[in-house]
């Protein structure tokens, strides 16, 4: 579910295959399936392989799910995404912003 950077609706920051990172990936996939949001583009960034990416959006706590707003601002959801409620709220905002 990864596409080119810059076009992505969501960016998922991970740290290799740490337990939290695995959980976050799984939780996100499950939520996407549940709400039929397969059209959303998700870009994964591994901060262990690519540490300078953290500075770009100031993401140091991981895992973190970032959505880019239309005017370049970013909203971030920190955590392994195990709290379904807050994850859903976050995804809803993305879906609303994206037409069709």
């Amino acid at each position, binding site marked *: 579910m990864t596409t080119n950077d810059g076009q992505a609706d969501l960016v998922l920051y991970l*740290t290799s295959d740490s337990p*939290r990172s695995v959980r976050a990936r799984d939780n996100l996939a499950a939520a996407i399936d549940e709400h039929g949001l397969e059209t959303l583009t998700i870009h994964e960034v591994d*901060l262990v392989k690519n540490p300078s990416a*953290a500075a770009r959006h*100031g*993401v140091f706590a991981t895992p973190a799910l970032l959505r880019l707003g239309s005017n370049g601002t970013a*909203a*971030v*959801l920190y955590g*392994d995404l195990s709290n379904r409620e807050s994850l859903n709220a976050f995804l809803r905002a993305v879906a609303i912003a994206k037409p069709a």
Partner: protein
Amino acid sequence: MSTINDNNSMLKRATGIAGLDDACAGGLPAGGLVLLVGGEASGKTVLCLNILACAAQRDETSLMLSFEESESQIRRCASSFAWGDAFNNSGRVSMIDARLPEDAATSGSFGLDGLQATLAHALNQHDTRWVVLDGIDRLARLHDDPAELTCQLIRLHDWCDANRVTVLLTGKHDGGASPTHARHLEDAEFALSTVIVLSAELVQRRLNRRLRIAKYRGSGHVTDELAMLVDHAGITLPLARHETHTAPPASNERLSTGIPRLDAVLGGGIYRHSTLLISGSPGTSKTTLAASISAAAVARGERALFISFDELADRIVRNVASVGIDLSKGLEQGLLRIESCASRPFLLEEHFIRIQQMLDSHAPDLLVIDPTSALLKANSAEPSHAIIERLVGMIVARGITLVITSLLDDGTPGEENTLTHFSTIADTWITLSYHAQGGERNRTLSVIKSRGTGHSNQVRELLLSSEGVELANVFEYGSEVLTGTARLLMEQEVAAQDREHEREQRLRLGRLQRRLEELDRERAELAEEYGILRETETHDSKTLDRRRKAILRHRDPGQATTRGNGGRHTK
């Protein structure tokens, strides 16, 4: 590769901040997390910036992640200090804006692995050894499980320890007023091995900042709350610094005060390296006396520093010039320096540093602080007397001869023991006073104590005139020491008496002399008489004899001749 040495002592990294390295016995740990907590305006961020600037000056790279302020705010803050250039323009300090978005939310728990990855990257790319995470409590606040967060911090700490990276975390600590803040950091405080607490409080309207090393496992450290000053030069802990000079051995050399009779009273002058206290009510010429001692030092070719809290330099020069003391020559030659300063606007610790800096730059042999009691008007975090003792200790350790002046008694509450306190520090104590008598006030000087010298207990009159400062001769007459006009009159009276006495003596002697001469003449006359009489008697006796012989010859010629043969005339 950890921060424990082969002999089990801790490896440290010097911060470069005066006093902090002393207080930590060498510096902060060379690897691991150091937690800096403090309230508003306590100086946490400035302390971190200062440490990074010092590192930059040593050509070491460092990294700062700001979770609270923007990069431009931080850089602006740094530029207000003397080392701002080193921080902003040396290229040695990398800054990352790590501020969380306003609407940052959480879903589940997060870790600090990303942070660790960033630090690892900086270490690999630039050999970054100093890292600051400023405002980490912002991130901590997001975490819903403080225990979990603490675990993550410990993991991060272990990584830093293993890789010899020192990370300074700053966080707000408002004494538990806000439950969220206190909760997160409290656990961390327990868990981490190095914690420094900063505080700032208003004491009599002055801001007093303090630093306390709450915890430093694995190292000895100063445990007291230390005064921390923030000024243009950055952060200083003035009283943590060890005095590097050792006091010279006691000297037998006497230094002149510029007043010969006073030198005589003191057994030659004041001892070099000793402390002289001059006390007296306002207007009793303490400054004049101190100025005379300074001028005497300059005349010997020595360096003197005169610190005044009462008067401006040019006024002092003018005032003492009117009594014949010339300070301008010493100023021109650069041997004398006069610094005047108000005491109230600064903390006592700030005065301590300024005096220390002046001693470093001018390197005097003699120091005058006039009046030292003015220092007590300044606020301080520690008890004033303790700081003044340290100040005097610092001065004496440098082998400087010290002259302190003190007002007798301000009448200010809490200062009753000032003079007693100063007097215990001083080796010699001279008190100046006014002696009111017969409608006049005359200046007096007396030596109350003089360690190492027997001294006169006499109260002497201090005479000021355009020719100079003088001590009057010891008053020789009567049971009471007189001064001023009374003395003058007494002296005249006594002089008149002496003259009278002398005159009478002369008369008496004259009379006796004449008597003697008379008697001499008499004697001479009598002797003459006696001589004449004796002569006459001899002449008479001879005449008598001749006559008798003539008669005898006439009456009995035979008898006259047999008489010569011893015949006796018997009938």
